[in-house]
Protein backbone atom coordinates (compact mmCIF):
# COMPACT_ATOMS: atom_id res chain seq x y z
CA UNK A 1 0.00 0.00 0.00
CA UNK A 2 3.02 2.18 0.43
CA UNK A 3 2.00 5.79 0.66
CA UNK A 4 -1.44 5.20 2.16
CA UNK A 5 -0.56 2.50 4.63
CA UNK A 6 -1.79 3.22 8.13
CA UNK A 7 -2.61 6.79 7.19
CA UNK A 8 -6.38 7.07 7.45
CA UNK A 9 -8.15 7.94 10.74
CA UNK A 10 -10.01 5.22 12.56
CA UNK A 11 -13.66 5.80 11.73
CA UNK A 12 -16.29 3.43 10.38
CA UNK A 13 -16.03 4.72 6.83
CA UNK A 14 -12.32 4.08 6.52
CA UNK A 15 -12.81 0.71 8.13
CA UNK A 16 -14.68 -0.17 4.96
CA UNK A 17 -11.55 0.58 2.98
CA UNK A 18 -9.67 -1.76 5.26
CA UNK A 19 -12.27 -4.46 4.76
CA UNK A 20 -12.09 -4.08 1.00
CA UNK A 21 -8.33 -4.47 0.93
CA UNK A 22 -8.39 -7.35 3.37
CA UNK A 23 -11.18 -9.08 1.51
CA UNK A 24 -9.10 -8.94 -1.63
CA UNK A 25 -6.05 -10.33 0.13
CA UNK A 26 -7.86 -13.06 2.02
CA UNK A 27 -9.97 -14.30 -0.86
CA UNK A 28 -7.11 -14.87 -3.23
CA UNK A 29 -4.29 -16.32 -1.24
CA UNK A 30 -1.94 -17.91 -3.72
CA UNK A 31 0.04 -20.67 -2.07
CA UNK A 32 3.54 -21.59 -3.05
CA UNK A 33 4.06 -25.23 -3.96
CA UNK A 34 6.39 -26.05 -1.16
CA UNK A 35 5.74 -29.63 -0.33
CA UNK A 36 8.64 -31.15 1.53
CA UNK A 37 7.40 -34.48 2.86
CA UNK A 38 4.23 -36.46 3.57
CA UNK A 39 2.16 -33.37 4.29
CA UNK A 40 2.77 -32.34 0.71
CA UNK A 41 0.61 -35.24 -0.44
CA UNK A 42 -2.25 -34.02 1.72
CA UNK A 43 -1.65 -30.53 0.37
CA UNK A 44 -2.02 -31.95 -3.14
CA UNK A 45 -5.18 -33.71 -2.01
CA UNK A 46 -6.53 -30.39 -0.77
CA UNK A 47 -5.86 -28.90 -4.15
CA UNK A 48 -7.44 -31.84 -5.98
CA UNK A 49 -11.11 -32.25 -6.65
CA UNK A 50 -12.51 -33.84 -3.49
CA UNK A 51 -11.41 -31.15 -1.02
CA UNK A 52 -11.13 -28.35 -3.49
CA UNK A 53 -9.15 -25.47 -2.03
CA UNK A 54 -9.85 -23.36 -5.09
CA UNK A 55 -13.33 -22.58 -3.85
CA UNK A 56 -11.70 -20.57 -1.04
CA UNK A 57 -9.63 -18.67 -3.54
CA UNK A 58 -6.45 -20.43 -2.56
CA UNK A 59 -6.20 -22.72 -5.53
CA UNK A 60 -3.65 -21.05 -7.75
CA UNK A 61 -0.46 -22.72 -6.65
CA UNK A 62 2.53 -20.78 -7.90
CA UNK A 63 5.86 -22.48 -8.11
CA UNK A 64 7.88 -19.31 -7.68
CA UNK A 65 7.96 -17.42 -4.38
CA UNK A 66 7.87 -14.09 -6.18
CA UNK A 67 4.24 -14.62 -7.17
CA UNK A 68 2.94 -16.36 -4.07
CA UNK A 69 1.62 -14.88 -0.88
CA UNK A 70 1.08 -17.94 1.26
CA UNK A 71 3.92 -20.31 2.02
CA UNK A 72 2.48 -23.58 3.24
CA UNK A 73 5.46 -25.34 4.74
CA UNK A 74 4.35 -28.93 4.49
CA UNK A 75 6.80 -31.42 5.88
CA UNK A 76 9.77 -31.79 8.17
CA UNK A 77 12.34 -29.05 7.91
CA UNK A 78 15.88 -30.11 8.72
CA UNK A 79 19.06 -28.08 9.01
CA UNK A 80 19.91 -28.34 5.32
CA UNK A 81 16.41 -27.38 4.25
CA UNK A 82 15.97 -24.57 6.78
CA UNK A 83 18.44 -22.39 4.92
CA UNK A 84 16.36 -22.88 1.78
CA UNK A 85 13.07 -22.15 3.57
CA UNK A 86 14.49 -18.93 4.98
CA UNK A 87 15.74 -17.89 1.57
CA UNK A 88 12.35 -18.61 -0.04
CA UNK A 89 10.57 -16.69 2.71
CA UNK A 90 12.83 -13.72 2.08
CA UNK A 91 12.12 -13.90 -1.63
CA UNK A 92 8.38 -13.60 -1.17
CA UNK A 93 6.89 -10.15 -1.53
CA UNK A 94 4.79 -8.47 1.17
CA UNK A 95 2.09 -9.17 2.27
CA UNK A 96 3.13 -12.72 2.94
CA UNK A 97 1.78 -15.34 5.28
CA UNK A 98 3.19 -18.63 6.49
CA UNK A 99 1.20 -21.71 7.40
CA UNK A 100 3.01 -24.37 9.36
CA UNK A 101 1.31 -27.53 8.19
CA UNK A 102 1.82 -30.71 10.07
CA UNK A 103 3.28 -31.67 13.40
CA UNK A 104 6.85 -31.50 12.15
CA UNK A 105 6.66 -27.81 11.35
CA UNK A 106 4.74 -27.01 14.50
CA UNK A 107 7.19 -28.52 16.96
CA UNK A 108 9.34 -31.18 15.38
CA UNK A 109 6.65 -33.83 15.16
CA UNK A 110 7.70 -37.45 15.66
CA UNK A 111 11.34 -36.39 15.22
CA UNK A 112 11.38 -34.11 18.21
CA UNK A 113 13.66 -36.27 20.33
CA UNK A 114 16.13 -38.14 18.20
CA UNK A 115 16.15 -36.12 15.03
CA UNK A 116 19.63 -34.70 15.30
CA UNK A 117 19.27 -32.45 12.29
CA UNK A 118 15.55 -31.72 12.39
CA UNK A 119 14.53 -28.18 13.30
CA UNK A 120 11.93 -28.54 16.01
CA UNK A 121 9.33 -26.17 14.66
CA UNK A 122 9.74 -23.67 11.85
CA UNK A 123 8.84 -20.73 14.03
CA UNK A 124 12.42 -20.88 15.19
CA UNK A 125 13.38 -19.03 12.04
CA UNK A 126 10.32 -17.76 10.16
CA UNK A 127 7.27 -16.00 11.65
CA UNK A 128 4.27 -18.28 11.38
CA UNK A 129 0.69 -17.10 11.06
CA UNK A 130 -1.20 -20.33 11.51
CA UNK A 131 -0.15 -23.74 12.80
CA UNK A 132 -2.13 -26.72 11.56
CA UNK A 133 -1.39 -29.79 13.69
CA UNK A 134 -1.77 -33.34 12.47
CA UNK A 135 0.47 -36.00 11.06
CA UNK A 136 -0.50 -35.44 8.32
CA UNK A 137 -3.44 -33.09 8.93
CA UNK A 138 -6.58 -34.13 7.16
CA UNK A 139 -7.41 -31.99 4.13
CA UNK A 140 -10.33 -30.60 6.10
CA UNK A 141 -7.90 -29.41 8.75
CA UNK A 142 -5.85 -27.62 6.13
CA UNK A 143 -9.00 -25.96 4.85
CA UNK A 144 -9.77 -24.92 8.39
CA UNK A 145 -6.30 -23.46 8.63
CA UNK A 146 -6.84 -21.47 5.45
CA UNK A 147 -10.20 -20.22 6.77
CA UNK A 148 -8.52 -19.29 10.04
CA UNK A 149 -5.89 -17.33 8.17
CA UNK A 150 -8.57 -15.58 6.14
CA UNK A 151 -10.29 -14.41 9.31
CA UNK A 152 -7.00 -13.23 10.73
CA UNK A 153 -6.31 -11.26 7.56
CA UNK A 154 -9.78 -9.71 7.65
CA UNK A 155 -9.07 -8.38 11.12
CA UNK A 156 -5.90 -6.56 10.18
CA UNK A 157 -5.63 -2.85 9.78
CA UNK A 158 -3.99 -1.86 6.53
CA UNK A 159 -5.11 1.67 5.72
CA UNK A 160 -6.42 2.94 9.05
CA UNK A 161 -4.44 3.73 12.12
CA UNK A 162 -4.78 1.96 15.43
CA UNK A 163 -4.58 -1.47 16.97
CA UNK A 164 -5.54 -4.53 14.93
CA UNK A 165 -9.10 -5.67 15.48
CA UNK A 166 -9.67 -8.91 17.33
CA UNK A 167 -10.18 -11.64 14.75
CA UNK A 168 -13.59 -13.31 14.72
CA UNK A 169 -12.89 -16.97 15.26
CA UNK A 170 -16.48 -18.13 15.81
CA UNK A 171 -16.90 -21.50 14.20
CA UNK A 172 -13.20 -22.31 14.28
CA UNK A 173 -12.56 -25.10 16.72
CA UNK A 174 -10.07 -24.46 19.47
CA UNK A 175 -9.20 -27.49 21.54
CA UNK A 176 -9.29 -26.83 25.27
CA UNK A 177 -5.91 -26.23 26.75
CA UNK A 178 -4.38 -25.21 23.46
CA UNK A 179 -2.12 -22.25 23.61
CA UNK A 180 -0.76 -20.30 20.74
CA UNK A 181 -3.78 -20.35 18.47
CA UNK A 182 -4.87 -16.86 19.38
CA UNK A 183 -1.38 -15.38 19.26
CA UNK A 184 0.34 -17.60 16.74
CA UNK A 185 3.47 -15.54 16.35
CA UNK A 186 4.34 -15.76 20.02
CA UNK A 187 6.29 -18.87 20.80
CA UNK A 188 5.84 -20.19 24.30
CA UNK A 189 8.99 -21.76 25.64
CA UNK A 190 8.41 -21.72 29.37
CA UNK A 191 8.40 -25.04 31.15
CA UNK A 192 4.90 -24.71 32.58
CA UNK A 193 1.74 -24.19 30.57
CA UNK A 194 0.55 -20.57 30.81
CA UNK A 195 -2.69 -19.60 32.57
CA UNK A 196 -5.73 -20.51 30.47
CA UNK A 197 -7.14 -17.57 28.50
CA UNK A 198 -10.85 -16.71 28.81
CA UNK A 199 -11.77 -18.46 25.53
CA UNK A 200 -10.28 -21.78 26.52
CA UNK A 201 -11.47 -21.43 30.12
CA UNK A 202 -14.97 -20.97 28.75
CA UNK A 203 -14.61 -24.09 26.65
CA UNK A 204 -13.35 -26.12 29.58
CA UNK A 205 -16.01 -24.93 32.03
Amino acid at each position, binding site marked *: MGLFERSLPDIHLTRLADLAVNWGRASSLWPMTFGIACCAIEMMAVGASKFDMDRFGAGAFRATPRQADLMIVAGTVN*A*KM*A*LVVKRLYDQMAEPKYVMAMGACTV*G*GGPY*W*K*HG*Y*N*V*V*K*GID*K*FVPVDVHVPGCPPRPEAVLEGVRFLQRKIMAKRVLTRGEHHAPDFTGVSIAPGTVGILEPTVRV*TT*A*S*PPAPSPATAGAQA
Partner: protein
Amino acid sequence: MTAAEILATLEKDGQGEGLALFAGPQDPALVVPRERLRAVMTHLRDARHLAFDLLVLVTGTHMTEKKDAKSQAIVREQHFEVIWHLRSVRHRCVLAVKTKLPFSDPEVDSVADLWPAANWHERETFDLVGITFRGHPDLRRILLPDDWVGHPLRKDYVYPREYRGINLEVDAPWPTP
Protein backbone atom coordinates in the same frame (compact mmCIF):
# COMPACT_ATOMS: atom_id res chain seq x y z
CA MET B 1 22.11 -71.19 -2.42
CA THR B 2 22.82 -70.58 1.23
CA ALA B 3 25.89 -68.88 2.60
CA ALA B 4 27.40 -72.22 3.57
CA GLU B 5 27.01 -73.53 0.03
CA ILE B 6 28.55 -70.37 -1.38
CA LEU B 7 31.49 -70.72 0.98
CA ALA B 8 31.99 -74.27 -0.20
CA THR B 9 31.86 -73.11 -3.83
CA LEU B 10 34.39 -70.38 -3.14
CA GLU B 11 36.73 -72.84 -1.49
CA LYS B 12 36.43 -75.09 -4.50
CA ASP B 13 37.22 -72.14 -6.76
CA GLY B 14 40.36 -71.42 -4.80
CA GLN B 15 39.10 -68.20 -3.26
CA GLY B 16 38.37 -69.62 0.15
CA GLU B 17 41.51 -68.41 1.93
CA GLY B 18 40.72 -66.57 5.14
CA LEU B 19 36.95 -66.78 4.72
CA ALA B 20 34.64 -67.88 7.48
CA LEU B 21 30.93 -68.37 8.00
CA PHE B 22 28.92 -66.33 10.45
CA ALA B 23 26.21 -68.86 11.20
CA GLY B 24 24.47 -66.53 13.65
CA PRO B 25 20.79 -66.72 14.56
CA GLN B 26 18.68 -65.99 11.47
CA ASP B 27 20.62 -64.81 8.47
CA PRO B 28 24.06 -66.37 7.94
CA ALA B 29 26.82 -64.29 6.40
CA LEU B 30 30.17 -64.77 4.75
CA VAL B 31 32.95 -63.18 6.80
CA VAL B 32 35.77 -61.88 4.64
CA PRO B 33 39.00 -60.34 5.93
CA ARG B 34 39.66 -56.79 4.78
CA GLU B 35 42.59 -57.67 2.46
CA ARG B 36 40.71 -60.37 0.56
CA LEU B 37 37.64 -58.26 -0.05
CA ARG B 38 38.17 -57.12 -3.62
CA ALA B 39 39.27 -60.51 -4.89
CA VAL B 40 36.27 -62.25 -3.34
CA MET B 41 33.81 -59.62 -4.52
CA THR B 42 35.14 -59.70 -8.07
CA HIS B 43 34.83 -63.46 -8.11
CA LEU B 44 31.30 -63.35 -6.70
CA ARG B 45 30.25 -61.01 -9.45
CA ASP B 46 32.06 -62.53 -12.39
CA ALA B 47 31.84 -66.30 -11.88
CA ARG B 48 28.94 -67.66 -13.92
CA HIS B 49 27.82 -70.15 -11.30
CA LEU B 50 27.63 -67.38 -8.68
CA ALA B 51 26.63 -64.30 -10.75
CA PHE B 52 25.86 -61.81 -7.97
CA ASP B 53 25.06 -58.94 -10.26
CA LEU B 54 22.81 -56.81 -8.08
CA LEU B 55 24.27 -55.01 -5.10
CA VAL B 56 21.39 -54.47 -2.74
CA LEU B 57 22.77 -52.73 0.33
CA VAL B 58 25.94 -51.57 2.05
CA THR B 59 25.67 -51.16 5.80
CA GLY B 60 28.18 -49.80 8.25
CA THR B 61 27.83 -50.39 11.96
CA HIS B 62 29.68 -49.18 14.98
CA MET B 63 29.86 -52.13 17.36
CA THR B 64 30.56 -50.95 20.86
CA GLU B 65 32.60 -52.72 23.46
CA LYS B 66 30.74 -55.44 25.31
CA LYS B 67 31.78 -56.64 28.69
CA ASP B 68 30.66 -59.81 30.41
CA ALA B 69 28.30 -58.80 33.20
CA LYS B 70 29.91 -60.82 35.97
CA SER B 71 33.60 -61.09 35.15
CA GLN B 72 33.97 -57.68 33.44
CA ALA B 73 36.08 -59.37 30.77
CA ILE B 74 35.86 -57.82 27.33
CA VAL B 75 33.63 -60.07 25.21
CA ARG B 76 33.74 -57.88 22.12
CA GLU B 77 36.20 -55.14 21.24
CA GLN B 78 34.97 -51.86 19.85
CA HIS B 79 35.12 -52.08 16.06
CA PHE B 80 33.29 -51.28 12.87
CA GLU B 81 31.56 -53.73 10.59
CA VAL B 82 30.59 -53.33 6.97
CA ILE B 83 27.99 -55.68 5.55
CA TRP B 84 27.23 -55.97 1.83
CA HIS B 85 24.07 -57.67 0.63
CA LEU B 86 24.30 -59.10 -2.87
CA ARG B 87 21.56 -60.59 -4.97
CA SER B 88 21.87 -63.03 -7.81
CA VAL B 89 19.09 -62.58 -10.33
CA ARG B 90 19.90 -65.77 -12.18
CA HIS B 91 20.22 -68.02 -9.13
CA ARG B 92 17.53 -66.31 -7.06
CA CYS B 93 19.39 -65.90 -3.82
CA VAL B 94 20.73 -63.22 -1.54
CA LEU B 95 24.09 -63.27 0.22
CA ALA B 96 25.44 -61.17 3.08
CA VAL B 97 29.18 -60.47 3.10
CA LYS B 98 30.68 -59.06 6.27
CA THR B 99 33.99 -57.59 7.18
CA LYS B 100 35.33 -56.30 10.46
CA LEU B 101 37.38 -53.12 10.68
CA PRO B 102 39.43 -51.95 13.65
CA PHE B 103 38.10 -48.94 15.45
CA SER B 104 41.21 -46.85 14.94
CA ASP B 105 41.40 -47.48 11.19
CA PRO B 106 37.97 -47.70 9.59
CA GLU B 107 39.07 -48.03 6.01
CA VAL B 108 38.07 -50.64 3.44
CA ASP B 109 38.26 -51.05 -0.32
CA SER B 110 35.49 -49.62 -2.40
CA VAL B 111 33.47 -51.82 -4.75
CA ALA B 112 32.03 -48.87 -6.66
CA ASP B 113 33.77 -49.91 -9.86
CA LEU B 114 32.35 -53.44 -9.64
CA TRP B 115 28.80 -52.31 -8.92
CA PRO B 116 28.09 -48.59 -9.57
CA ALA B 117 25.18 -48.99 -7.17
CA ALA B 118 27.72 -49.02 -4.36
CA ASN B 119 28.76 -45.45 -5.10
CA TRP B 120 25.95 -43.78 -3.20
CA HIS B 121 25.72 -46.46 -0.52
CA GLU B 122 29.38 -45.99 0.31
CA ARG B 123 28.99 -42.23 0.40
CA GLU B 124 26.16 -42.66 2.85
CA THR B 125 28.15 -45.04 5.02
CA PHE B 126 31.00 -42.55 5.06
CA ASP B 127 28.60 -39.74 5.91
CA LEU B 128 26.74 -41.40 8.74
CA VAL B 129 29.25 -43.87 10.21
CA GLY B 130 32.61 -42.50 9.17
CA ILE B 131 34.06 -45.44 7.26
CA THR B 132 36.32 -44.40 4.38
CA PHE B 133 36.39 -46.38 1.16
CA ARG B 134 39.70 -46.61 -0.66
CA GLY B 135 39.37 -46.01 -4.36
CA HIS B 136 35.93 -44.43 -4.28
CA PRO B 137 35.67 -41.88 -7.12
CA ASP B 138 33.93 -39.14 -5.13
CA LEU B 139 33.77 -39.72 -1.39
CA ARG B 140 31.88 -36.85 0.16
CA ARG B 141 28.86 -36.40 2.37
CA ILE B 142 25.54 -37.17 0.78
CA LEU B 143 22.72 -36.81 3.30
CA LEU B 144 24.08 -34.28 5.75
CA PRO B 145 25.34 -30.83 4.76
CA ASP B 146 28.94 -30.71 3.59
CA ASP B 147 30.17 -28.84 6.65
CA TRP B 148 28.46 -31.06 9.22
CA VAL B 149 30.74 -32.22 12.00
CA GLY B 150 30.63 -35.77 13.25
CA HIS B 151 29.18 -39.07 12.15
CA PRO B 152 25.71 -39.50 13.65
CA LEU B 153 25.30 -43.25 13.55
CA ARG B 154 28.23 -43.83 15.86
CA LYS B 155 27.07 -44.83 19.27
CA ASP B 156 28.94 -42.00 20.99
CA TYR B 157 27.44 -39.21 18.90
CA VAL B 158 26.32 -36.10 20.76
CA TYR B 159 23.37 -34.31 19.17
CA PRO B 160 24.34 -30.80 18.05
CA ARG B 161 22.64 -27.78 19.51
CA GLU B 162 22.71 -25.62 16.45
CA TYR B 163 23.89 -25.55 12.87
CA ARG B 164 24.91 -22.30 11.21
CA GLY B 165 22.71 -20.28 13.53
CA ILE B 166 19.62 -22.48 13.27
CA ASN B 167 18.49 -23.75 16.62
CA LEU B 168 18.23 -27.55 16.69
CA GLU B 169 17.45 -27.94 20.36
CA VAL B 170 14.50 -29.76 21.75
CA ASP B 171 12.18 -27.69 23.91
CA ALA B 172 11.55 -29.25 27.28
CA PRO B 173 8.13 -30.92 27.36
CA TRP B 174 5.52 -29.47 29.64
CA PRO B 175 5.08 -31.44 32.84
CA THR B 176 1.96 -33.57 32.81
CA PRO B 177 -0.62 -32.50 35.42
